[in-house]
């Protein structure tokens, strides 16, 4: 017990003694835990709005449709199929052009009864339900068109009054609307001419959903398609029911199970979640790289303390425990903070659409989320700490008491090459060669950051130039943009912290050799330039690797996981990639200039 108290006390005292470093450690781990929490709670929150919509609208378990009235018998047969306990419809569905003020869009107009039904009764969020000459607009579609109750719209030139805005669980919200009418629908950017683009005439482009009375629907098209909503005895059998009945020999009857609709309705939340989870892993790696340097530098500064602990009888195990305890404490606090911040900010990223009832609200925090986030925080802390802690624990007590610095590495070939370079580069190469592990961490840190930025550039360009692609409406694009912004800000902050921390660790580690170089005639500018160049050179390598293969590989991985259509994205051009590499190098040079300048101007006599 006494030993645990001692370990705890030493850890807490040391953290309080070096508050700035402790704060940086905390921030680095917190960035990763916050992003991970966001990703995990989004997964849990994604289904909630759809479920509440399904309850509020008596959502169907299976939605079946036919393209012609001649196949209507197929639908009627389904109503009596085993397992079906209730149904509504068949309802006529027609395609039309809707014009609202200055905006025009294709729509699928469903003819409904004014009386409520027991299966799929859309729930008005504004106004009321259908009546003669009145149209009810699906909520996400109304939001995208900026249509409100009381507005006048035209359907194929006929004027209707918007009498309501409603949500349904029978279709995913706009623009992910299911396609019922022949010859089909397309999503994504609208080509100038369908025929020119090799598309069949009459194809609906990003259609919205509206409801009319059956009479009004038939007046728009006397030969409509039909849709029917089915309620099953066991909703969990919906997909099996759809699979079993879809290929009915009487004619193709496309069917969608509620699970299938849920998947489309929550696509945005799932995509956001995937982006955040990938971001969390990237930030976790970045945190490990940054922490390794911070912890390494911190433990190097504790050499004498380690010597004292060992001299008064501390075993190597105790020394390692004291050092690890500090970072375990920081990791636990960072996990708690990340869980709190992540769960509080998650609602900003879960507005899946206006097409569902309610919002995710405050997503619930499950034990698995808490456990995973804490485990990742501890893992990041441990991975970054274990090598320097074990090294310190195994160091010679006498050397530690003498505070002798860790001997630098010698890379003979680099030293020979550096002799041929101008003084700042000569010193820079030797500074870098002294600590190859730190150089690797620096390269990794920059490569991860640049890979992340590469993907952000691609996704941002995709969201800007491909409206409605992948079933995203304007509001949803806005949500995804927010996710990307969270990514960008945390990624850049952590990368900046890493660059400064690595430079400062290099400055401290090289204070003696820098002073010696100045005693031998190097100018402060030579030394500052060398310290900065020692960071800029790995940054250049990291930036190049971050673009290729890093960025391409990361983008490919995201595409593979999300099932995205990578061919539709515009990859950055060569000049953009060159600009990215150049900008990275310049930013690193700017970030490292201050610590490098301070390092180049330390008093020589005092240091020696």
């Amino acid at each position, binding site marked *: 017990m006494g030993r645990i108290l001692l370990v705890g006390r030493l850890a807490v005292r040391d953290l309080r003694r070096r508050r700035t470093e402790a704060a940086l450690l905390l921030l680095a781990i917190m960035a990763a835990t916050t992003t991970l929490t966001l990703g995990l709670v989004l997964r849990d929150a994604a289904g909630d709005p759809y479920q509440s919509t399904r309850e509020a609208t008596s959502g169907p378990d299976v939605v079946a449709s036919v393209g012609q009235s001649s196949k209507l018998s197929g639908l009627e047969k389904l109503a009596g199929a085993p397992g079906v306990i209730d149904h509504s419809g068949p309802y006529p569905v027609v395609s039309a052009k809707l014009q609202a003020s200055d905006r025009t869009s294709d729509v699928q107009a469903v003819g409904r009864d004014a009386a409520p039904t027991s299966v799929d009764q859309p729930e008005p969020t504004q106004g009321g339900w259908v009546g003669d000459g009145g149209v009810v607009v699906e909520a996400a579609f109304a939001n995208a068109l900026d249509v409100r109750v009381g507005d006048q719209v035209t359907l194929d030139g006929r004027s209707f009054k918007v009498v309501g805005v409603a949500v349904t669980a029978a279709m995913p919200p706009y623009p992910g609307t299911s396609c019922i009418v022949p010859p089909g629908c397309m999503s994504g950017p609208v080509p100038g001419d369908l025929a020119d683009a090799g598309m069949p005439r009459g194809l609906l482009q990003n259609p919205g959903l509206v409801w009319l009375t059956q009479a009004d629907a038939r007046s728009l098209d006397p030969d409509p398609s039909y849709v029917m909503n089915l309620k099953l005895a066991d909703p969990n059998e919906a997909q099996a029911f759809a699979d079993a009945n879809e290929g009915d020999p009487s004619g193709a009857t496309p069917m969608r199970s509620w699970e299938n609709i849920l998947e489309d309705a929550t696509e945005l939340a799932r995509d956001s979640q995937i982006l955040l989870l990938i971001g969390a892993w990237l930030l976790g790696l970045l945190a490990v790289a940054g922490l390794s340097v911070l912890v390494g530098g911190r433990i190097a500064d504790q050499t004498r303390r380690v010597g004292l602990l060992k001299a008064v009888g501390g075993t190597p195990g105790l020394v390692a425990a004291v050092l690890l305890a500090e970072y375990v404490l920081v990791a636990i606090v960072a996990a708690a903070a990340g869980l709190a911040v992540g769960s509080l900010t998650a609602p900003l990223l879960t507005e899946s659409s206006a097409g569902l009832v309610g919002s995710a609200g405050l997503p619930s925090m499950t034990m698995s989320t808490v456990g995973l986030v804490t485990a990742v925080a501890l893992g990041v802390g441990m991975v970054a700490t274990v090598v320097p802690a074990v090294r310190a624990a195994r160091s010679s007590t006498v050397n530690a008491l003498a505070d002798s610095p860790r001997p630098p590495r010698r890379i003979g070939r680099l030293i020979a090459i550096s002799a041929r370079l101008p*003084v700042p580069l000569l010193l820079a190469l030797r500074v870098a060669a*002294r600590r190859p592990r730190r150089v690797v961490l620096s390269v990794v840190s920059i490569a991860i950051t640049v890979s992340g930025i590469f993907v952000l550039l691609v996704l941002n360009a995709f969201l800007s130039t491909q409206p409605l692609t992948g079933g995203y409406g304007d509001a949803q694009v806005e949500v995804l943009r927010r996710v990307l912004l969270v990514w960008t800000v945390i990624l850049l902050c952590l990368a900046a912290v890493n660059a400064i921390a690595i430079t400062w660790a290099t400055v401290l580690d090289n204070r003696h050799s820098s002073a010696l170089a100045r005693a031998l005639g190097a100018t402060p500018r030579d030394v500052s330039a060398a310290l900065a160049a020692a960071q800029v050179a790995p940054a250049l390598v990291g930036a190049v690797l971050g673009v290729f293969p890093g960025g391409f590989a990361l983008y490919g991985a995201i595409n593979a996981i999300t099932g995205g259509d990578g061919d539709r994205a515009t990859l950055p051009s060569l000049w953009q990639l060159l600009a990215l590499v150049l900008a990275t190098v310049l930013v690193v040079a700017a970030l490292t200039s201050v610590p490098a300048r301070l390092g180049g101007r330390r008093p020589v006599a005092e240091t020696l």
Partner: protein
Amino acid sequence: MSNAAGTSVLRARGVRKEYGKGEGLVRAVDGVDLDVGAGETVAIMGPSGCGKSTLLHMLGGLDRPSGGEVSLNGRRIDDIGEKALARMRRTAVGFVFQSFHLMEELTAVENVELSALLAGRSPRAARRRAEELLEQVGLADRARFLPSALSGGQRQRVAVARALSNEPLVVLADEPTGNLDSAATLDVLQLFETLHESGQTLVIVTHDPRITATTDRVISMRDGAFVDETRLTGGTTGRLGALAGLED
């Protein structure tokens, strides 16, 4: 304190170094005057903390005085910029430190050539000069050894070779035998004697009385000021080891 030769390579006038303020003011060096002539070897002696090393740092431009003037080869160095000071150290001053200050990751020859590379010499010329110097200090066969594989005396000889790399006007040595055993001390003293004979100007800070046997003048320092000067003329060549009490 003035030199006999007349021409001062190194000159200090009223040099002071103060730390702190008010009641906490400490005068590490307090109004020192010094002239070191070309080819002269001067030892500055005194107890630990008397200001010897601080004075040496100011003479070599590693530290700036709080007051007074320091000139090297007739040029003031106490009021010039960091860049000019660096250039001056590169070409006109060679330092030898008590704890050697060799770069652990560089071999002996790489340590010696470092000064020349910093001064802009070609890698080939720097290497040739470094090898010559290592030969002079008797370490040609240790040129490719890392400092960790050398004895204390050998490390200090490498440091001396490095100090001579750019043919400096003056070599400033700060307790050069302070970390050495008797045999290594003898090695280094013999090396300084050789330098002295070759006409190299040397200022050696030490509190080891044995080292004074190699010098022309011994200046005693206490509480930051010079308190005594002894001139030793012509008595230090030949049986140096016996004179210093290191040989039978």
